[in-house]
């Protein structure tokens, strides 16, 4: 299946990025694949570490790590923000 990414904030650089992933992969699995996929690319160096604590969401719903993705979709990346 094809997973497209749309990044908010610090992950904005990943908007439009696409990964081919097996159906029924969990969010944790997709996170891992995404990190592996960008690891060697210098242009994504600033976002690599942030992905480990970034929240993933579909068009309407925030997903936990165990949630399985079954078909093509766009995943929104919501990086952590802590300022006030």
């Amino acid at each position, binding site marked *: 299946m094809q997973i497209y990414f749309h990044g*908010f904030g610090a992950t*904005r650089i990943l908007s439009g990025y696409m990964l081919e992933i097996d159906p029924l992969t969990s969010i944790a699995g997709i996170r891992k694949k995404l990190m592996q996929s960008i690891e060697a690319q210098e242009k994504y160096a600033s976002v690599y570490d942030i992905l480990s604590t970034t*929240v993933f969401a579909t068009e309407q719903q925030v997903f*936990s790590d165990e949630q399985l993705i079954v078909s093509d979709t766009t995943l929104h990346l*919501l990086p952590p*923000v*802590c*300022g*006030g």
Partner: protein
Amino acid sequence: MDKPYLGQSCLEQGYLARYLAQQILPEIGKIGQDKLMASKVLVVGCGGLAASALTYLTAAGVGELTLIDDDVVELGNLNRQILFTEADVGQNKAESAKLRLSQQNQHVKINAITQKFNLANGLSLVNCHDLVLDCSDAYSSKLAINYCCSLTRKPWVYASVLGWDGQAALLTLHNRHAPCYKCWQESAPHGLRNCEANGVLGAAVSTVGSHQAGLALQYLLGYLHNANCLWVFDLWAMEQKKFQLSKRHNCKFHSDKLENLPFCSYEELRLWDEYILLDIRSGDEWDIGHLPQARHVSPGILMEVEKYYKTTQNLVIYCNQNTLSQLVVENLRNLGYRAFVLDGGYQAYAHLAVRKLD
């Protein structure tokens, strides 16, 4: 709170004119305005988010606002913390904000606490307010708010900003099915993800703070249609999106039985040489019935635990069904105490209770 705001006195004191523009909204009206005037809101942190949120809560006539912040105003705050002027540099933020907001609306009661919000002072503060606004700038503060609101079953409005971006969510923790902060933000953000290290745009902070005020006012008016959703703002892309949040089944703030916590039964206690049985339910529940040999304490036991108990004593905690007691025991253990959860809570042993009518 004194109640000069309600009924005819509102007209007499010019309240009607002051709030007319919002009171004619069908969603507010006279009843809604009275609800706002009778509400008490705790605001944690008095920086950039609070500048917008507090300005609108004060303007809207929320009855009582308690501001807590131990930080002082610095010149580098002024690009976004628009409650303050150059003359406030070096002054405590809660005190300075109180002064400014009191000038904005003299009818709002404003309290300033010049301390850092933490577990020690947080439980009792949260407990005596209707709603908590998270305008803090650290993950640890957000966790402390989440913890205190989980324990006391109070709703809170989370918000955070960074760079051009922000998030906000109304978490209705008085409802046991509602998600908490840890349900979606499981681990601490990687590295330093704060305004000083990464930069922040004042307009982004103001946008999120205003949104936070909107969520707070909706809750105080009794509207929950935007509850338990995460709002994400990106001012660079000029995007705003809403995502539904749900309770995570393995979130420790909601699980029926936490792993690695010591549980004991009431029968087992009889075999122990020494223990102190602590009931952390409400005073009313305690009055109706409690277990023999128990002492009543508030969940705020954590605030002054060292004053009353030693780390060598066996502290056995119970609430109604183990939800609160597990959180308290976990925290007491983190503080080095020999704390245990009474398995099944009060409900499992209610038949043994000493009752008021007995």
